[in-house]
């Protein structure tokens, strides 16, 4: 009788476990493939052990992609955090304008990133796009948005910011609304200024919420694909070939499966490490915040 009791939770998770294995299987298979030189032109591959990884790390294209990926992720996450928290603070004032706008805050976030990139691609078109048209009165008519290396990277980040700033704002706003009121009342009684209250009270207590958002955004932008694929296809040249785009090009376009997967495995390791560090930090921050409350 006792063992039946102990077994029950396992029975409930078995279906999910099976399905998870169904997803883990290709992952394991991919890991296995990286040890071979499997490609469309070589369907009977030979074991090459770690040569794929060696090739990845010695390829200049990899280091270029890694650099672009980091620039993209740090840039996007930083702008989204600052902008998102600012928007949340402005919305938290709950003015009439704010209450109306809050209802439509999520719209960009619910648009598929690839569609968002399409939308921006149309707007950023140098000759007929609406953005250059609107800039013309300011004497900035012919900006080649996605046709220069820097412009392409900044444009991609802008699309990311457009889509995901609401994500940070929504979490930060939820955080602001859950802060206890008494410390703020006490600060007001003490005559503390806005900046002091913000730096000494709001920000430290809000930080755990913001950090959750930052973690999600940073790790997601490390593996960005949709936006770049639709907006620049990695160009011009190699200037926006982030790691997942590189993996796509190698594995799908050039059909060098093993080599392409090696790229994603390396990226996966990076994301995993970043997650470990950030989540550990989050735990510390949350405990601290819980003590402060």
């Amino acid at each position: 009788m006792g063992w039946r009791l102990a077994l029950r939770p396992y029975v409930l998770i078995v279906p999910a476990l099976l399905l998870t294995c169904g997803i883990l299987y290709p992952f394991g298979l991919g890991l296995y493939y990286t040890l071979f030189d499997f490609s469309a032109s070589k369907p009977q591959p030979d074991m090459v052990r770690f040569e794929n990884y060696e090739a990845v790390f010695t390829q200049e294209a990899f280091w270029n992609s890694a650099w672009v990926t980091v620039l993209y992720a740090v840039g996007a996450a930083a702008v989204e955090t600052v902008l998102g928290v600012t928007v949340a603070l402005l919305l938290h004032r709950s003015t009439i304008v704010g209450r109306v706008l809050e209802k439509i805050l999520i719209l960009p976030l619910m648009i598929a990133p690839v569609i968002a990139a399409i939308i921006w691609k149309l707007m950023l078109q140098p000759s007929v796009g609406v953005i250059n048209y609107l800039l013309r009165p300011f004497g900035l008519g012919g900006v080649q948005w996605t046709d220069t290396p820097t412009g392409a990277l900044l444009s991609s980040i802008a699309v990311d910011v457009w889509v995901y700033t609401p994500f940070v704002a929504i979490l930060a706003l939820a955080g602001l609304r859950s802060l206890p009121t008494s410390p703020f009342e006490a600060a007001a009684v003490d005559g503390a200024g806005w900046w002091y209250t913000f730096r000494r009270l709001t920000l430290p207590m809000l930080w755990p919420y913001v950090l959750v958002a930052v973690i999600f955004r940073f790790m997601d932008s490390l593996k960005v694909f949709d936006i770049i694929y639709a907006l620049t296809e990695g160009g011009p040249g190699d200037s926006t070939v982030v790691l997942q785009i590189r993996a796509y090009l190698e594995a799908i376009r050039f059909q060098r499966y093993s080599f392409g997967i090696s790229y994603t495995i390396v990226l996966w390791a990076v994301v995993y490490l970043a997650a470990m560090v950030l989540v550990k930090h989050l735990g510390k921050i949350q405990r601290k915040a819980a003590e402060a409350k």
Partner: protein
Amino acid sequence: MSTAVALRGIRKTYGKTTALDGLELEVAEGEFFCLLGPSGAGKTTTLKTVAGLEQPDAGTVELDGRDMRGVEPYDRGVAMCFESYALYPHKSAYDNLASPLRSPRHRLPAAQARERIGEIAELLGISALLDRPVGHLSNGQRQRVALGRVLVRPARAFLLDEPLSHLDAKLRQQMRAELKAIGAVRRTTTLYVTHDSVEALALGDRIGVIRDGRIVQTGTREEIWYRPYDTEVARAFGRPRINLLPGAVTPAGGFRSADGGVELPLPAPAAPGAQTLIGVRPRDLTLGEGPGHELTGTVYVTEVLGRSVEVTVRLGEQHVSLVAPRGAAAGLRPDDPVRLSVRPENLMLFEADRPERPGRRIGP
């Protein structure tokens, strides 16, 4: 009388904390048993173990002499009232009360169920609330619905976890008086958990005092009152609290308080020099001259408690409380000298409290 509920050597740990530490308990058929203890003592865990909601790490639970190991809660035939009420928030009060009567094990035809629910609602004074969602009820009302859900169905035992704690004072007193008179309760073995000693004394045929996951003492209210196991049990019952004077046994076999200000005969034999506490309940101290041993002191403070007065008297460096009729204490002012008397048979002798455990009663 046969044993309805028996717990033998129950151990239950959650991670590193021990909730129940070899708990032993027997409740007789039809008995109303009160389990009294502070929060965290293991009261709720005890009830849940009886109900089969918690699995003990060691020990056995027996209901009517049958080992309940591996028996599911719904097959144990016990009903429990949760301290958190555990009412179904998405249902009306009526549907909450009807829940057991619609279950496969206690099903009644709808008409009979309605009649039964009506009776119970009447009894608990919640007839007018039946159609309301439980979310719209006050805490006191919810608690009565929770109690009703227990009483509405037949059970081998009722397990009640602080069922009166959220009622307001007046209603609590009224319900306390009525609870034992309810037919179902009178006929059914009841294990009643409370942290309120007044409730335990008023309701319990027997009382079990639980502390740190063990039963410290079991007995009738008289046994618990006059023969407490240790100073902590003595302190738990009675307001104002029992007076406990620290002191030592003199070579002559008497008691002298630590400051030397009080001398009393020893109520029980003890070795000379032993560190002890003398206990006397405030109602057993008489103001003025009377039979028994006499003491003198000065009034420290007086507080009117309705028809009686609590007088705190300074005896040397110690304070003792006593309860006197209002007339006897009239006109007493702080620092007035007073005489007290106590009958030797009302004195209790305890070992001195130690850091690791309260002092045990030596006698009588």
